[in-house]
C-alpha cells in the first residue's frame, strides 16, 4: 500500500534526505555563525549544532505560510509549485521565506556562537565541521521516516568521522537523543560518547562568572528531562552563577511539553499549548523563562501572548551574559 502524507511532511523529509537540512538551508548559511572563530575541523571533541537553532526562524515562516493557507486556495497551489521546484532544483527557503526578519535570523544564528563562546570560556577545546555539518535526522525519526533515516544517517556519520572526534557535544537534546538511542541501532560501531551542552557546562560550572539577574524559571525540555534525565544539572548551573530559580508546578520529569513537536502539522493547537505552558511557568513567580532546546525556545516564543512582558531565552543565551566580550 502507498500513502500520501500531508505536504509539509514530504517537504521536510525530502529536504533532509536531499539537502541535509529540514529546510534545505545551505551549509554555508548554517555555519555562518562560526566565521572568525577559526574552529579546527579536527579534534577530540566535536561541537555539533545540527543546524537546529539556525533554522528556527524559517520553521516559523513555513508554519505561518501553512497556517494561513487553505488547501485548494491559490497560495496552496503556489506551495505545490514550490514542491515541484523542490523536486527539480531543491527548495529555496531564501526566496520562499523572504519574510523572515533579519533580527530573528541574527538572534537564532548567534545562539551557536554564544554556545561556542561559553564552552571556550570554560576552557573546552573543540572542533566543528563547518559547511559540511549535516542535520542529525531527528525529524525523520520523529515523523516515522525510519527507512529513509537509516540510509541518511550513514552520510551524517561520515562527516562526523572526518573530525576524528571521540565525543560529540550536542546543543539540541533532540540530536543527543537520536545519537544516543537511534544511531547505535542503525550504524555499525557507532561508539561516540554523546554529551549535551548542559553536561559540559555542568562539569565546569565552578568556573562560570556570576550573573546579575532577577530570578528565573526553568522550562525543562521533555527530551532533556525524561529521555536524557537532565534536570538537576540546569538548577546546579544557575546556582553556580548566583541566580535564584523559581519552580513551575509541573517541572523536571513532570514538565509540560511546549507544543513544539506538532507545530508543523497542527500549528494553531501547538500555539495554544505553548501559551498554556508560558502561563504555567509564569505562575512560578518569575517572568524570565529559560530553556535548553531549540524547539522549546521557538514554541514558547510563539506561545507568548502579544504584549506579554515575559522573557524567554535559551540557557545558552543567558549564560553568555557572563562571558567576557
Amino acid at each position, binding site marked *: *500500500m*502507498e*500513502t*500520501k*502524507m*500531508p*505536504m509539509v*511532511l514530504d517537504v521536510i523529509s525530502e529536504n533532509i534526505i536531499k539537502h541535509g537540512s529540514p529546510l534545505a538551508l545551505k551549509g554555508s548559511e548554517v555555519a555562518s555563525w562560526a566565521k572568525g572563530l577559526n574552529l579546527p575541523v579536527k579534534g577530540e571533541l566535536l561541537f555539533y549544532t545540527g543546524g537546529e537553532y539556525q533554522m528556527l526562524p524559517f520553521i516559523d515562516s513555513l508554519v505561518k505560510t501553512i497556517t494561513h493557507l487553505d*488547501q485548494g486556495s491559490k497560495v496552496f497551489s503556489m506551495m505545490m509549485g514550490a514542491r515541484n521546484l523542490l523536486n527539480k532544483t531543491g527548495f529555496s527557503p531564501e526566496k520562499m521565506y523572504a519574510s523572515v526578519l533579519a533580527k530573528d535570523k541574527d538572534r537564532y544564528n548567534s545562539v551557536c556562537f554564544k554556545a561556542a563562546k561559553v564552552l571556550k570560556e570554560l576552557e573546552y577545546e573543540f572542533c566543528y565541521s563547518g559547511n559540511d555539518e549535516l542535520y542529525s535526522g531527528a525529524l525523520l*525519526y*520523529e*515523523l*516515522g*521516516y*525510519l*527507512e529513509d533515516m537509516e540510509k541518511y544517517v550513514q552520510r551524517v556519520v561520515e562527516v562526523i568521522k572526518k573530525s576524528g572526534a571521540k565525543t560529540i557535544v550536542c546543543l539540541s537534546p533532540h540530536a543527543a537523543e537520536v545519537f544516543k538511542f537511534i544511531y547505535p541501532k542503525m550504524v555499525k560501531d557507532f561508539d561516540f560518547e554523546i554529551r549535551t551542552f548542559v553536561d559540559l557546562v555542568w562539569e565546569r560550572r565552578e568556573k562560570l562568572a556570576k550573573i546579575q539577574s532577577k530570578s528565573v524559571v526553568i522550562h525543562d525540555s*521533555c527530551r532533556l528531562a*525524561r*529521555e536524557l534525565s537532565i534536570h538537576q544539572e540546569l538548577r546546579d548551573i544557575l546556582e553556580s552563577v548566583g541566580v535564584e530559580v523559581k519552580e513551575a508546578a509541573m517541572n523536571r*520529569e*513532570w*514538565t*509540560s*511539553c511546549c*507544543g*513544539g*513537536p*506538532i507545530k508543523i*502539522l*497542527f500549528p*494553531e*493547537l501547538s500555539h*495554544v*499549548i505553548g501559551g*498554556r*505552558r508560558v502561563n504555567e511557568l509564569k505562575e512560578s513567580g518569575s517572568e524570565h523563562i529559560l530553556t535548553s532546546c531549540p524547539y522549546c525556545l521557538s514554541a514558547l516564543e510563539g506561545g507568548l501572548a502579544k504584549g506579554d512582558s515575559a522573557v524567554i531565552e535559551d540557557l545558552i543565551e543567558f549564560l553568555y551574559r557572563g562571558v567576557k566580550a
Partner: protein
Amino acid sequence: MTVDFRKDFVNYEKSLNAASEDKNIRTAISRAVTSYRNTVAETLERFPHTPQLAEEVQEIKSQSMANLDNLVEQAMASVERNKGKAFYAKDHQAALEIALGIIGKGKTVVKGKSMLGEELHLREYLEDNGNEVWETDLGEFILQLRKERPMHILSPSIHVPREQVAEVFSKFFNKEVPPDIAEEVKVVREFLREKYFTADIGISGANVVAADTGAMVIIENEGNVRLATGAPPVHIVMVGVEKLVPTFQDAMKVAEVTWRYAQYGVPGYVNIVSGPSKTGDIEKVTTYGAHGPKEFYVIFVDNGRKEMAKEEKFSQALHCLRCGGCMYECPVFQVTAGHFGHTYMGGIGTIWTAFVSGGMEKAAPLVYSCLRCGRCVERCPMSINVPGMIGELRERIVYGKYED
C-alpha cells in the same frame, strides 16, 4: 493502492482547533486535571504500597497477555461451571449478534458504562433492533440524551456544564429542571429506578476477570451497576479479553491499582459477580434466580485484541487499566478532550484505534497529533510506552506497512 491522508488531516485539524477554542472543554478539563492530581497524590500518600503493587500488576498483565488463549478457555469453563453461559466473539459483528441473540426484540435493557459498549456501538445496535436501552451511568445518560460520544473514558460528559445538563433534562423530562447538580441527579435517579425493576436485561462490562473462578470485578461509585446487574432477571457481561488475569488474587491486585489511579480514592462499590443468583435454602435444592438474575451470560470479545497481543511492540498497550491518568497529563487532551481520539482517546487510545476500533486510517491523524512528550508514561501505572508505539505506527503509516 494509494491512501491519501491529506483531507483527513485537514478535517481533523479543524476539529482540534474548534475544540481548543471551546470554553466548556477548557474549564471542565482544567478543573478535572487539578482534582485528579490532588486526589491521586493524596491517596498515593495514604496507600504508599500502590506503586509497588502496580509493578506487580504489570507483571501479571504481561504474563496474562502472553497466555491469552489459555486464559480465555479457562475463564469460559469457569463461567459455565458457575452455571453461567460463556461466549467468545471473534469480532465486532459477532459480539453484537451474540448479544442480540440473547436479548431478542422488544426488550428493555439497562446498561452500565463500558468502553467496549462504545467500541461496539452496542446501544445503537440494540435500539435499531427494536429494543429500549438506557445508559445508567449519569454521564453516559446525559450523552445518550445529547446524542454525543464520550469525551473521557471515566467522565464521559466531562465537557457538559450543569446549565447544559439542566437544559437537556428539562426537555427530556418535560418539566423545569433547575441547573442544580443535586436536583439533576435526583430526577435521573427517579427515572432510572423504575427502569431497573422493569428491565428485562442488565448489561455491564468488567474491570478485571479472574480466569480461575470466573469472577467479574466491576468498580463503580454511583451504584448504578449494582442495580443494573442485580435487579433484572438477566445479566450479560461484555468484556474485552485483555481484562483476563489468572487468579482471583491477581484480580484483586489489578482492581486496587485500577481504582487508585482512576481517582476513586476508595470506590463506593466493588461488584464481584461470578454466576446467576441462586439459593439452596429449601431442602438444599439449588434454585436459580433468587433475588438477582436467573440467567448470567459472559461474552468475551476479541475484536483485534489477540492480534495486538501477538505484536511484541504493541502487546503492552493491552495492559491499560483505563484509569484515565495519562489523558489528564496529556497537553493535547487537556485542550481538546475526546476530540483527540476516535472511540478510545489520547495517546493510548490512538494505539487502540489502530488495532481495535477504527483501524489505521482513522488512527493516522491522531498518531501525528501526539507530541510524544512522554508525560503519559510518567503517569501510567503500567508504564506503557505510548510514545514508542506512536513512533512505530508513524513508520507503518509513512510506508504503508499495514493492512486495514
